[in-house]
């Protein structure tokens, strides 16, 4: 048994944030029904460079474990199918701009009337209220407006964003947190509710240390390359053949690091003797340390530091990260078979439940793969289904 078995989720989403939310619910066993327009399907089905046998990799990545139905929402019979689905569901997730769902009668207020237990989650660029509610938003824009770009990158370089789309991903996770919290409330009261989050808010919620620094010092934090805001040494350091990371910010780890470097004298040096002093003299400390680390390879230092109990690691590229023995031992790379693409790989579930573990065991649906199955569940007769098909309401 998976933990969310028996929870039905209607997934009227596209692109990344909201599909990532429902993908996580599907990994944990929820019955996620993805609704797509007939013909081309959701936009990420369009082929870019990442594809296999004509199947879009980005779509397959974000939609594993879901069932798929293709429904034309421009026809009233199509909207009716989605309303019927919403009546059977626990959760409804959508990421249209505010206004679009209202025109279709698929907004929270309308669906709540047919299913008061429904938890309706909306993930948008800026949230359902406020002056920018109607604007479109992307991860990049949210990273820029949340302050995340302002604290990422080289100290004097051009702007850099988080290489991973963290506003999208975090909004998806915060959405899942809101949905599951609302499910707990529903257990006690029988009432559904609206769960409303956005890329902007998700990215801002990740600026915990940076906001705190600003409110405490009155100064807006700046990018620091790979270094930590509040402790040192905690950064990438240069070995003879490239960089590796070391986190030795507290006094105990710093002492162990100095011993491993053969420079216990740093502990007596007034510039480095306390956490505050090290932070104030971070550049000098880095220069002193790199004089030593530059003499040996990354591999040699990682071996020394593991023995010394100092947290350190390589800077892996994705080929290395996805082949790392620990990543494999933790089940982070999963093999799947997709009906069209054949053998594919997917990322595993990062949180392990001992009794009712989640699992990645089904690839993303083909467009309309489960249309007939789902219409049968909704008790559409064969002749009704044939009529819907011939009118192009479903595919």
């Amino acid at each position: 048994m998976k933990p969310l078995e028996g929870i039905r989720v209607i997934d009227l989403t596209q692109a990344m944030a909201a599909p990532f939310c429902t993908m996580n619910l599907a990994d944990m066993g929820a019955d996620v029904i993805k609704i797509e327009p007939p013909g081309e399907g959701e936009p990420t089905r369009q082929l870019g460079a990442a594809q296999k046998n004509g199947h879009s990799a980005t779509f397959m990545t974000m939609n594993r474990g879901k069932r798929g139905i293709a429904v034309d929402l421009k026809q009233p019979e199509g909207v009716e199918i989605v309303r019927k689905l919403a009546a059977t569901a626990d959760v409804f997730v959508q990421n249209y701009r505010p206004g679009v769902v209202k025109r279709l009668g698929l907004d929270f207020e309308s669906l709540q009337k047919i299913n008061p237990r429904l938890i309706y989650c909306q993930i948008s660029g800026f949230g359902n209220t406020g002056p920018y509610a109607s604007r479109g938003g992307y991860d990049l824009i949210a990273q820029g407006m949340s302050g995340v770009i302002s604290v990422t990158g080289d100290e004097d370089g051009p702007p850099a964003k988080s290489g991973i789309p963290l506003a999208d991903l975090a909004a998806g996770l915060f959405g899942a947190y809101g949905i599951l919290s609302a499910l707990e409330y529903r257990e006690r009261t029988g009432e559904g509710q609206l769960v409303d989050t956005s890329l902007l808010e998700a990215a801002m919620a990740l600026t915990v240390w940076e906001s705190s620094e600003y409110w405490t010092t009155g100064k807006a934090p700046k990018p620091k390359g790979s270094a930590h805001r509040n402790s040192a040494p905690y950064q990438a350091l240069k070995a003879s053949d490239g960089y590796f990371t070391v986190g030795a910010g507290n006094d105990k780890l710093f002492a162990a690091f100095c011993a491993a470097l053969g420079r216990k004298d740093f502990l007596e040096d007034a510039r480095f003797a306390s956490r505050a002093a090290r932070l104030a003299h971070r550049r000098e400390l880095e220069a002193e340390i790199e004089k030593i680390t530059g003499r040996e390879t990354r591999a040699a230092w990682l071996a020394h530091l593991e023995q010394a109990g100092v947290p350190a690691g390589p800077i892996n590229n994705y080929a290395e990260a996805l082949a790392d023995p620990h990543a494999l031992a933790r089940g982070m790379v999963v093999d799947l078979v997709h009906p069209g693409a054949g053998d594919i790989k997917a990322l595993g579930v990062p949180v392990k439940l001992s009794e009712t573990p989640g699992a990645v065991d089904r690839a993303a649906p083909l467009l309309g793969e489960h249309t007939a199955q789902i219409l049968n569940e909704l008790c559409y007769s064969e002749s009704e289904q044939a009529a819907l098909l011939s009118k192009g309401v479903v595919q």
Partner: protein
Amino acid sequence: MVSQKNPPPGETPGALAGLRVIDQTQVMAGPFCSMLLADMGAEVIKVEPLEGETMRQERVIAPGVSASFLALNRNKRSLALDLKQPGGVEVLKKLAASADVLVENYRPGVAGRLGVDYETLKKINPRLIYCSISGFGQTGPYASRGGFDLIAQGMSGIMSATGSEGGPPVKVGVPITDLGAGLFAVFGILCALRARRTTGRGQFVDTSLFEAGLALSAWEATEYWYTGQIPKRLGTAHRLNAPYQAFKASDGYFTVGAANNKLWALFAEMLGLGELVTDPRFNTVGGRMQNRLQLEKLLEAATSKQSRAHWLERCEQAGVPAGPIYSVAEAHADPQAQARGMTLEYEYPGVGWVKALGNPVKLSKTPARLRKVPPRLGEDSDAILRELGYGADEVKALRAKKAVA
């Protein structure tokens, strides 16, 4: 009662009211996880060593008050307990017997040495959901290693995809694997709560910074597996689309996401570069990706002639998604962030008004709210011990033995 500026109206209960959480965590990933539960109304009891968790020493803004601690520990109660004393361990066991959830982020093995690991506590409370957050998880070859956000960012591949090509290594400026692990832990705990309704039993929930970093690399893993190319560092640009990046205006940078043919055409025409729309180098996403640096040059020749404010206004008129690159200060001052309650302001006794981040998820019936300011060390020790059935004399004896403070 918390004295707070602009609290959400009403006095609704939290979605997670009635849930009792023991929070044996420190620094970031664990406290972030338990704070998210507390924001939704769970009763979170933070169990700290007698000297307080390590973050209480950082960014001290008044005697005994740390801004870093405040940032992640609101809505929690504090119990100061020495787990190296039998009396302290006994208190923790009694707490665990009464709890729904326990969250800890020790290095694997430490909880076992203290006698408060899952195997021990599930015998006392089979319904307990026990969540461990660590650097690498409880199993696998690196299980016993200590892990920090930096190390996890490096090993998961995130650093290899962040920053500008050719520059020194850069991490994501916010500790994304700490925060991601906290979020996945919340997700796992809430899933385990659902399962408990069916099975009647708790379980062990195990996640890590490293795995969170990998799970957040969905796009990059996809690029690598399907194209065979190793994702590179692209500054602010997108892996699969263009133009979608920061552009230089006369007074700094702004972001533009013109990530499909329609938006691209709008953006090019807005810049007076309509001829580029049909240019064979740029008339498809693939072409724009392939010729991205050329495209950037052509577009920046136009954008650099006017200010950020000018272009942002023009983009809004044209319907092209765009935005400023705010400092954290500007982010909090933005009217949308304000309207969405992303900055809380409350009175901290003995300190005055302090600010905090709002919860990013808005629930219509049971909104997250500030019910309790972050606790002073051991602020709730007596009350919690009395609730567990310890008499006044027993509490006094525990204090005398320094098992509790």
